[in-house]
């Protein structure tokens, strides 16, 4: 039993290691002090107001949101179509296609970034927001495929066949039966892809056109000088978005599931 309490203590310490630094960022974002560190001088929301008035940050936020939304929609569409093909039809070399779809995670992001950049150079195209979007789709796609396939396993073709034998035409069967069953997979894919795009910095630093900043690259640029209190406030806002959104989605999904049963 003594071993077990040691294991529990060790686990607690690991959790502390994971969360203390993050908690400190959130706490410091409400600090009234002039600088972004300790000591704490009082509670204040001034840095959140300062955020809203900082044009560069607001612009970066808009870019990140737009990029994340578009990347999520495109990656999820591509991922769901491909997953449907691989899971509902007997395609030769299914394994090969699966590996191919997931392979972008197996290649270091830096190399993916250089590859796409050199391809643009080879085509004599300047870096553009379209390149950034395409790159984010590439990075998000494998994760969408993984999430969607995990959800699709439960949707068997028999449901659709049943609808067909009851007189639905293929399009009706898809929209009335398959699509509603697909919705959880669609949402999971969208959410995952959005988070990945919204959070990406490694490849984004290579791909972004001159003068375009996403939230992470903006934070990275601001870090070069010192950690301003605004960065802490921005961090808190990002945490609320990337943690709050999935939690909210999960809670809503659970509420719906409860109502149905």
């Amino acid at each position, binding site marked *: 039993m003594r071993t077990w309490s040691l*294991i529990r203590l*060790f*686990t607690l310490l*690991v959790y502390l*290691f*994971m*969360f203390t*630094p*993050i908690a*400190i*960022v959130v706490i*410091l974002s409400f600090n009234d002090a002039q600088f*972004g*560190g*300790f000591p704490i001088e009082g509670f204040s929301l001034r840095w959140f107001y300062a955020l809203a008035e900082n044009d560069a940050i607001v612009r970066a936020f808009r870019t990140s949101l737009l990029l994340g939304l578009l990347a999520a929609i495109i990656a999820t569409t*591509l991922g769901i*179509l491909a997953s449907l*093909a*691989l899971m*509902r*039809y007997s395609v030769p070399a299914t394994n090969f296609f*699966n*590996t*191919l*779809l*997931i392979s*972008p*995670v197996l*290649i*270091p*992001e*830096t190399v*993916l970034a*250089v*590859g*796409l950049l050199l391809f643009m*150079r*080879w085509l004599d195209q300047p870096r553009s927001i379209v390149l950034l979007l*395409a790159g984010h789709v590439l990075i998000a*796609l*494998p*994760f969408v*495929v*993984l999430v969607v396939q995990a959800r699709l396993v439960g949707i068997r073709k028999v449901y659709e066949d049943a609808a067909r034998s009851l007189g639905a035409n293929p399009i009706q069967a898809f929209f009335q039966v398959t699509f509603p069953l697909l919705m959880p997979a669609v949402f999971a894919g969208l959410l995952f892809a959005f988070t990945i795009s*919204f*959070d990406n*910095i*490694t490849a984004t*630093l*290579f791909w972004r056109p001159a003068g375009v900043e996403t939230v*992470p690259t903006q*934070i*990275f640029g601001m870090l070069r000088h010192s*950690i301003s209190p605004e*960065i802490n406030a921005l*961090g808190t806002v*990002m*945490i609320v978005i*990337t*943690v709050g959104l999935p939690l909210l989605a999960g809670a809503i999904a659970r509420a719906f599931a409860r109502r149905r049963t």
Partner: protein
Amino acid sequence: MRDEGFDARPWVLLAPALLALLLLMVIPMAIIFVFSFYEYVDVAVDRPAFQFENWLWFFQDGFYHYAIWQTLRISAITMLVCALLGYVPAYFIANTTYRHKWLLMLLLILPFWVSFIIRQLSWVHVLGSQGIVNAALLWLGVIDAPVRLLYNEATVVMGLVHFLLPFMVLNIYVSLESIDRNLVSAARTLGCTGWQAFCQVTLPLSLPGLAAGSLLCFVLAGGSYVTPLILGGPDDFLFGNLIYDTIMLELNWPMGATLSVVLLALLGSLVAIYGRFMGLSRLYKSLN
């Protein structure tokens, strides 16, 4: 539609994704390879050619070899620390009788959702000159001026561990969770001590998870370059930093391409070896 011979529908569904991968990954990878033979003329100027100057440079310059060694070393240390720190929590979550186990799982997944850059810079608040450790030591009167704790190799490893630990814990947890509990009970009734049962039964059966987690940690650490920029000193660079500097600062694209091929070969061969022995499907599951 009734044609039994060829069904075009799955191919129509697959086509957009395959086209995207072809344009965004397959061709670019080929282009990197081609660029590594191009000739560097001047900053941001290169000439299509087939010559080996970049490769000769890479093979002759000890600096690059040192960078490879440093990258492998830091990745290996990161992987080991992750394995050591990650096994116990995974074991705890898998075996606890705590009623709110889902909460422990959620807390494990939560760091994935917290922005990477925020997680990395948060360590400046812990160890920086205005960080909590220095603030506490100053307040206690142990020191008179802030001590320099950041910007060394140890903090780079720590930042990487902070980023990669959840991958390790999740992988080991999945492995441990799938072990038949009766096996451990059987070992105990046959006279094993708890420790023996762990070493002879649980640990070997959890090795696949440990291997998958280790591979992920190693490969992701070896490919990173942002962490050393935030938490490292001038000497704490990884191979990715060389690529970033060569491409984005020196604008020497042929050399940057060459270095990218090297990094891809280095980390790709590890993935390939792993895939050969363990199969890649486990890795996919663990990324979920």
